[in-house]
């Protein structure tokens, strides 16, 4: 079948470029400029999917975002995408589309049995049926529902496409390029405002492309082209097609997605597929137009039934006839335009008008063309299963509550028009509380909450003349407010047909003893009867009715169903629509891909990577890295076939026996200066700081105001008013904010400045009994003896011409130094240390060995300072000053913090001296006790003690100090282990701390 429904000389397509594509395995052709929908319709294909619940055959209904049915699975460029709207997707060479929600095929779908069992699928069916037994839910009900309620299938492959984000600021964002958008963008741009004009479709112009109007004696299309050309030449205007403003957030932040790639046959390598724009506009002009709403009648979901404006768009834009024997069913004048377009193509439509016989410009035009019009008539039901074959129509009584007669007319399509619904989604998202407009039976924007203005059909203005007037005026006024310019543009003359008022008829009554399904919401398969059931069962709030019946949910957000649903609820409840209210409009307006939201923030670009100056050396020396926040730190340096356990044991043992070197650049470093620096530290830390001499470091603990330990580290007095603070790697940023808070907010009178210098200094720790020997060779001019540079001492030195800061501090519990040089010299320092240390058997050690060393020393770190512990819990009571006040001190008086059986830090050794204890294990008295087994504490850190050659752990245990010597069980349900342990002191190595002072 070769484009049987294509019209020769109509439409805006490129007829010189034929495009071939596949649908459900069959090959078809279309033209450049087609959508998937228009190309299929050109080939006479209507049946594209099965409905959500009843698996009824469904065809195209709209021609753009209004489409509820035609959601297809698309294969393109090797990836598969579900739920693509066929009426929006532009045809490109080689795409393959498939129907969804049907098995084995769209022509014959087993699930359609639901349609004949529909008595058993009432509203809330799933809620009612799948209630019990509870055990059925997981294995039986959920998989069944998932299968039955299928839309498309998400790909499990990695998305190889490129997506981008962009930030833009402008004076005026115009959403929609119909007459309202074009006129306001033009007026504002001419008045010097920075304007962004966004059009969702590939073609600019909106209704101007399909309506028989003239502006300045030009056709709508010609005028559009003229304005767009001018706008594109202006430097203060960004004009974007294929770009939908889909979200409206606080402070006039709008979000737009641009389809940059899918329509290109040979997409250049670095062209993204889609681009997300964050646009902060001073003013937003909403010219989003309106969407035609259907009239509800029997079997109104049969393929071949269209919105009348969609049928017109298929003729005028795509040169496609949706049928050759059309029945036009309307309650207003606009569908007459569709009838006249059919007539122009030599096709005789029949018009059913629910209104009584009267005359208007369009009615008269139709009559003069000899188009058959049946007034006071409506469609009772469509006939045909996979495609409309005929319609049962009837004459309405005066009250339009019953049919006076009925007859069958043959037709191959029904074009229905129930008047127009303004697209108010963005206005509503912006906080505008909508109001109901009786004149058009729809909601329109009311008072703006943000700087937004609706113009044209989106606020219920349906004539071109008013829209252009309003557009030019709004564009000028808004731009004048921002630019203070006064260049107004003249408003063009326009011509259009005058339309008579519509009729409020929205739903055909059922004839007696007939029970045709009349659908309100096609996408979610919600029929009139479903909503009636929900109301009968006591659901009153429209939000509840929505959730119970799924009315207006899913990807089309009820664009065609909302108002008819509200009408129905209002009728049954004997209310009027504004009393029923409407459900909430939420972004996005149409579905967007996850890729667009994520943008470039994938893989390595997910977050910045911080590397130390010595990173390349680590890489060359087989470091296996671990993430520490954004930092990459060597976890261990692999030698031969070593694993983590073996390597870290070797590295740690080398520190205890000889000397090791560790990259400590990642520690937070904060420079603190000012005459009140000592006083400030005295308030920040729990211990005393006023008497720390110059050239000395001190270990400090800082608390939050609630008494919980926040961080620890050493701070060194470099000179009278200058301190160098170190923090843990993890808390560096928080500690800086914390210090800034107290200096700027709480104690602004203190003369102190803080500055992060983490990135400015490269740090290396030399640790082990031989570290002094290495240091002495690194700094031959310095006296580094225990007397000249004692534990917690600080001196500055010259490392082969590079200024170095030498701190005698220790994390490993060994004699140790930390040397800092300016970052650029980090690698130089490291290599010198390795070179000089060679004779002392120096080896680099990673974070795993570092942990081992600190754990067996009983030195607390992140796992112990976990946001739940106070200094007393982790053996830091010696650092809590009794004399002075400090941040969080008052909280330490809390009763709970002073309980005698408060949790305390202890050490654990497995009684078999062999089995490693998983971190996170719970400590219990009886491993076989009945659940819930009373928990005494948990294992915070575990290592293999290289000093004692057996496993050792730190734990936080209730009444810990009195537990020493007792036996407990460390149980880990996660690892399925249960290990007998002995509680010992947390200091497993060098109790008296002799080594650090040696």
């Amino acid at each position, binding site marked *: 079948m070769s484009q049987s429904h294509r019209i020769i000389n109509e439409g805006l397509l490129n007829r010189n470029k034929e495009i071939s594509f596949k649908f459900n395995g069959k090959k078809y052709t279309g033209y450049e400029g087609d959508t998937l929908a228009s190309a299929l319709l050109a080939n006479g294909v209507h049946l594209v999917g099965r409905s959500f619940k009843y698996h009824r055959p469904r065809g195209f209904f709209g021609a753009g975002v209004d489409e509820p049915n035609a959601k297809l699975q698309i294969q393109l460029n090797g990836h598969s995408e579900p739920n693509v709207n066929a009426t929006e997707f532009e045809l490109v060479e080689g795409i393959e589309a498939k129907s969804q929600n049907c098995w084995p095929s769209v022509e014959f779908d087993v699930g359609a049995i639901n349609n004949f069992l529909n008595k058993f699928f009432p509203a809330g069916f799933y809620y009612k049926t799948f209630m019990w037994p509870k055990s059925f839910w997981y294995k039986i009900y959920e998989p069944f529902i998932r299968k039955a309620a299928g839309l498309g299938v998400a790909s499990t492959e990695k998305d190889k496409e490129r997506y981008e984000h962009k930030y833009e600021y402008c004076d005026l964002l115009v959403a929609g390029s119909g007459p309202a958008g074009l006129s306001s963008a033009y007026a504002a741009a001419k008045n010097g405002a920075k304007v962004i004009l966004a059009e969702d479709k590939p073609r600019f112009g909106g209704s101007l492309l399909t309506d028989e109007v003239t502006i300045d004696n030009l056709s709508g299309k010609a005028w559009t082209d003229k304005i767009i050309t001018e706008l594109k030449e202006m430097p203060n205007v960004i004009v974007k097609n294929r770009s939908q403003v889909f979200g409206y*957030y*606080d*402070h*006039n*932040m709008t979000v737009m997605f641009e389809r940059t790639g899918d329509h290109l046959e040979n997409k250049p390598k670095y062209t993204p597929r889609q681009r997300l724009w*964050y646009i*902060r506009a001073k003013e937003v002009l909403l010219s989003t137009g309106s969407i035609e709403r259907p009239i509800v009648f029997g079997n109104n979901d049969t393929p071949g039934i269209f919105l009348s404006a969609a049928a017109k768009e298929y003729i005028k834009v795509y040169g496609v006839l949706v049928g050759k024997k059309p029945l036009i069913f309307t309650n207003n004048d606009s569908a007459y335009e569709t009838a006249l377009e059919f007539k122009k193509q030599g096709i005789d439509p029949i018009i059913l008008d629910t209104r009584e016989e009267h005359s208007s410009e369009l009615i008269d035009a139709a009559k003069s063309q000899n188009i058959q019009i049946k007034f006071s008539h409506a469609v009772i039901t469509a006939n045909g299963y996979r495609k409309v074959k005929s319609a049962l129509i009837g004459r309405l009584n005066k009250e339009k509550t019953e049919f006076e007669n009925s007859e069958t007319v043959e037709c191959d399509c029904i074009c229905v028009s129930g008047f127009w619904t303004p697209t108010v989604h963005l206005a509503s998202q912006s*906080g505008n509380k909508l109001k109901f407009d009786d004149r058009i039976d729809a909601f329109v924007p009311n008072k703006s*909450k943000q700087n937004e203005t609706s113009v044209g059909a989106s606020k219920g203005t349906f004539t071109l003349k008013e829209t252009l007037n309003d557009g030019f005026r709004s564009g000028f006024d808004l731009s004048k407010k921002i630019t203070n310019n006064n260049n107004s543009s003249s408003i063009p003359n326009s011509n259009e047909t005058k339309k008579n008022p519509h009729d409020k008829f929205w739903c055909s009554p059922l004839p007696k003893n007939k029970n045709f399904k009349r659908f309100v919401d096609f996408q979610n398969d919600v029929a009139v009867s479903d909503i009636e059931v929900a109301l009968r069962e006591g659901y009153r709030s429209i939000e509840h009715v929505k959730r119970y019946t799924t009315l207006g949910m899913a990807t089309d957000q009820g664009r065609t169903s909302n108002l008819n649903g509200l009408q129905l609820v209002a009728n049954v409840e004997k209310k009027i629509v504004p009393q029923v209210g409407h459900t909430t409009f939420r972004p996005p307006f149409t579905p967007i891909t996850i890729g667009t939201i994520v943008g470039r923030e994938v893989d390595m670009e997910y977050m910045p990577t911080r590397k130390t100056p010595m990173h390349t050396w680590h890489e060359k020396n087989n470091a296996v890295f671990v993430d520490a926040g954004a930092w990459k730190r060597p976890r261990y340096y692999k030698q031969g076939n070593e694993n983590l356990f073996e390597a870290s044991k070797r590295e740690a043992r080398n520190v205890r026996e000889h000397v090791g070197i560790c990259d400590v650049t990642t520690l937070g470093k904060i420079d603190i200066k000012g005459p009140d620096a000592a006083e400030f530290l005295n*308030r920040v830390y729990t211990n005393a700081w006023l008497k720390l001499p110059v050239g000395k470091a001190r270990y400090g603990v800082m608390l939050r*105001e*609630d008494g919980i330990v926040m961080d620890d580290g050493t701070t060194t007095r470099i000179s009278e008013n200058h301190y160098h603070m170190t923090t843990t790697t993890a808390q560096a940023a928080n500690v800086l*904010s914390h210090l*800034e*808070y107290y200096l*700027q*907010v*709480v104690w*602004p009178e203190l003369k102190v400045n803080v500055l992060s210098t983490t990135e400015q200094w490269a740090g290396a720790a030399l640790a082990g009994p031989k570290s002094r020997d290495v240091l002495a060779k690194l700094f031959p001019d310095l006296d580094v003896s225990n007397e000249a540079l004692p534990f917690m001492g600080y001196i500055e030195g010259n490392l082969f011409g590079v200024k170095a800061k030498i701190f005698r501090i220790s994390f490993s519990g060994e004699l140790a130094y930390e040397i800092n040089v300016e970052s650029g010299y980090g690698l130089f320092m490291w290599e010198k240390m390795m070179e000089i240390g060679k004779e002392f058997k120096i080896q680099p050690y990673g974070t795993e060995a570092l942990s081992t060393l600190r754990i067996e020393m009983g030195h607390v770190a992140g796992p112990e300072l976990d946001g739940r512990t106070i200094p007393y819990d982790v053996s830091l009571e010696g650092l809590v000053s009794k004399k*002075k*006040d400090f941040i969080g001190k*008052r*909280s330490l*008086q*809390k009763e709970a913090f002073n309980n005698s059986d408060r949790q305390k830090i202890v050490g654990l050794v497995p009684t078999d001296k062999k089995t490693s204890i998983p971190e996170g294990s719970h400590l219990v008295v009886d491993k076989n006790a009945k659940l819930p087994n009373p928990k005494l504490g948990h294992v915070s850190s575990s290592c293999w003690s290289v000093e004692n050659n057996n496993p050792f752990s730190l734990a936080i245990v209730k009444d810990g100090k009195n537990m020493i010597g007792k036996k407990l069980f460390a149980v880990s349900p996660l690892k399925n282990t249960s290990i007998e342990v002995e509680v010992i002191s947390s200091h497993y190595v060098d109790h008296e701390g002799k080594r650090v002072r040696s």
Partner: protein
Amino acid sequence: MLYIKCPFCGYRSQKEFAYGGDGTVKRPELNQDISDEKWNEFVYLRKSPRGKHVELWHHVAGCRQWFKVQRDTVTHEIFQTTKMNEEIK
């Protein structure tokens, strides 16, 4: 996403800032006897007003200054931002 006027840098996107809690809380003076009740109130109890509220924000990805913001907690409208040593009028 809010658009916040840093008193030092001008209008910037919310992404550059960190929220810093209730701006009306005063830390008790150091070295004072404070009742359990008063201390508990300072550490834990915060009002969650509907409507106008003075709060602190920190320009972490900018000038690193803390400042005051008067914001409507319902509509997110920001009425005023000031430096710490200035009063919200």
